[in-house]
């Protein structure tokens, strides 16, 4: 079975929003499965029109391109429903193809993962 990396994306600050994807594409290149869990301000990354506003000069790709690349590689993108009311976000605000999950989803995935990274 393929090894798995789980990334906790809790910030929309560019220097915290880009590394999950930079390392995520690296994990996929190394034949690992990738699951990304977006919570708190990290939800802005997967809000419709959100990634376009988060820019990091010197990064090899835009955030939108990174999202496309990890998805082409089969990444699961999960939005933390526990943070929806805190940051004022609804499921329909999110880009297509994102699943919603609660805290147990993250804990269950993290428990079974080979690598867990946290950016917040």
């Amino acid at each position, binding site marked *: 079975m393929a090894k798995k990396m789980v990334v906790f994306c809790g910030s929309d600050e560019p220097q915290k929003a880009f590394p999950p994807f*930079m390392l995520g*594409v*690296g994990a996929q*290149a*190394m*034949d690992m499965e990738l699951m990304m869990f977006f919570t708190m301000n990290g939800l802005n990354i997967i809000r419709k029109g959100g990634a376009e506003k988060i820019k990091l000069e010197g*990064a*090899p*790709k835009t955030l939108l391109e990174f999202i496309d690349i990890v998805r082409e590689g089969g990444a699961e993108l999960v939005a933390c429903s526990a943070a929806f009311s805190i940051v004022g976000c609804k499921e329909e605000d999110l880009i297509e193809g994102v699943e919603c999950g609660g805290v147990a989803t993250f804990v269950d995935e993290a428990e079974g993962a080979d690598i867990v990274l946290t950016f917040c």
Partner: protein
Amino acid sequence: MATPEELNQLTADKKVDARGTPCPGPLLEAKRAITSVPMGGVMEVLSADESTNKDIPRWANKIGHEYLGTIEEPGYWRIFVKRGK
């Protein structure tokens, strides 16, 4: 591993110029390009990002390709990988 002289004599089946992009760009380009190299064929990656010299051999080893070696040129590196999978 091949010597620089041996590497210089290789004809790559696919050459990827990733000199304009920082990490992890060259790795992404290598990953994409190797699929168009015939099994047992050679890919040459040009990178100006020094860490790619360490990343490509690790990636190749993990995936089942063979890292053949690197030639250092002024300001960039030529990294050779033989497709194994």
